[in-house]
């Protein structure tokens, strides 16, 4: 659906034969006109059939700081044919390929693994590829993630989110390595169960965008980063010294204690990670770590 390169193949074969008759440029322009007319006809035909088909109305946020006349944020309407199992991302791709090729949004794997297409759909952060249109109320309002700078249309600047993610040192770093360095470092099944949900994070940024505290406090690590910290702090293979370092990072002023348990992040997480639960557990861990009864 997203590719439109079929018409090009015939071009190269004929090129050498007819070169003498007319200039290459003329021919190319004529071909281009032809193609355009063809596309236009196809589009019109497609639009005509929409009338007796089931369709969905999308209201998509548009903004482009580089084009004069598009600098004022606005909503564009797109009516796309609905088919069973259609996701928000499918609809966006259809709208882009059929109506407006300047419509910009991130997407890659289309199966909720890459975390590129977190969007603000009907007032809630969702993954476009994982959200069924059938579940949404019409019209479907699609906006970029709130509390992040919009680069263009539905694309937001994720730099700050990534900074926060990296701030918790999200990599496995054990105190002691096995003797030959390459040996497997096994985890107990119980420990794996404990961190299982937290490993699911796909860095989509939906939680951070939904978090009221993160919106007001730029230095707050945010749910995703704290969840990452949880994943490694709770990993028993890392050892006590590393855990202390990790706790030191997350119990700072803008760490876990900023969380006010609004549950927004848990609510929107497309991978169903119990973020608030993990943050709360780290809070308790931090308290236990610092409490001395003697």
């Amino acid at each position, binding site marked *: 659906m997203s590719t439109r390169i079929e018409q090009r193949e015939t071009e190269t074969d004929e090129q050498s034969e007819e070169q003498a008759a007319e200039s290459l440029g003329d021919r190319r322009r004529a071909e281009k006109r032809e193609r355009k007319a063809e596309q236009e006809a196809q589009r019109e035909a497609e639009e005509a059939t929409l009338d007796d088909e089931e369709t969905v109305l999308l209201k998509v946020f548009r903004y482009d700081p580089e084009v004069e006349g598009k600098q004022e*944020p606005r909503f564009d309407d797109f009516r796309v044919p609905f088919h069973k199992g259609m996701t928000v991302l499918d609809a966006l791709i259809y709208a882009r390929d059929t109506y407006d090729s300047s419509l910009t949004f991130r997407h890659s794997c289309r199966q909720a693994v890459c975390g590129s297409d977190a969007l603000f759909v009907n*007032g809630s952060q969702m993954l476009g590829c994982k959200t069924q249109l059938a579940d949404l109320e019409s019209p479907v309002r699609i906006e970029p993630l*709130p*509390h992040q700078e919009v680069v263009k249309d539905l694309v937001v600047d994720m730099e700050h989110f990534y900074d926060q993610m990296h701030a918790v040192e999200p990599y496995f770093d054990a105190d002691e390595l096995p003797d030959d360095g390459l040996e497997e470092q096994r985890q107990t099944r119980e420990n794996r169960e404990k961190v299982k949900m937290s490993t699911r994070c796909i860095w989509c940024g939906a939680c951070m965008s939904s978090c009221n505290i993160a919106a007001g406090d730029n230095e707050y690590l945010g749910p995703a980063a704290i969840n990452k910290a949880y994943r490694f702090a709770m990993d028993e293979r890392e050892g006590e010294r590393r855990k202390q370092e990790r706790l030191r990072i997350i119990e700072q002023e803008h760490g876990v204690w900023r969380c006010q*348990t609004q549950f*927004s992040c848990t609510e929107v997480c497309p991978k169903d990670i119990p973020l*608030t639960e993990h943050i709360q557990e780290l809070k308790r861990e931090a308290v236990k770590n610092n409490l001395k009864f003697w």
Partner: protein
Amino acid sequence: MSQSYDRGTVEDFGRWREFSAGMWAWIFHKFTGWVLVGYLFTHIAVLSTALGGAELYTSTLQGLEALLVVRFLEVGLLAVAVFHILNGVRLLMVDLGVGLEAQDTSFYASMVLTGAIVVASVPTFLGGPLA
């Protein structure tokens, strides 16, 4: 990021319609908390009249109770206090990591319970004669 960046209709105050249970709980908890702080001052002010003797204290209280507005304010105060207590228990549970998956249910429960207690209190607060 947190600097205000005008995205037109994207970020406006209409968003409250999209809040979920946890968010409402937080907002109400903040609100009731501030109301209770405010009440504390009036509470101390009224109690302080006792420094001017038993007579003054009694007449102040009787004077206040004679006002219909005060009766209604008392119902409101009870509502605020009860919600704050119940949601406080809910937050305690959340902090202890107990039943986090039921956090929205417990919020609705505390709302319903608050409503019931407030309704039940109405005869007591509004019942007596406005001397």
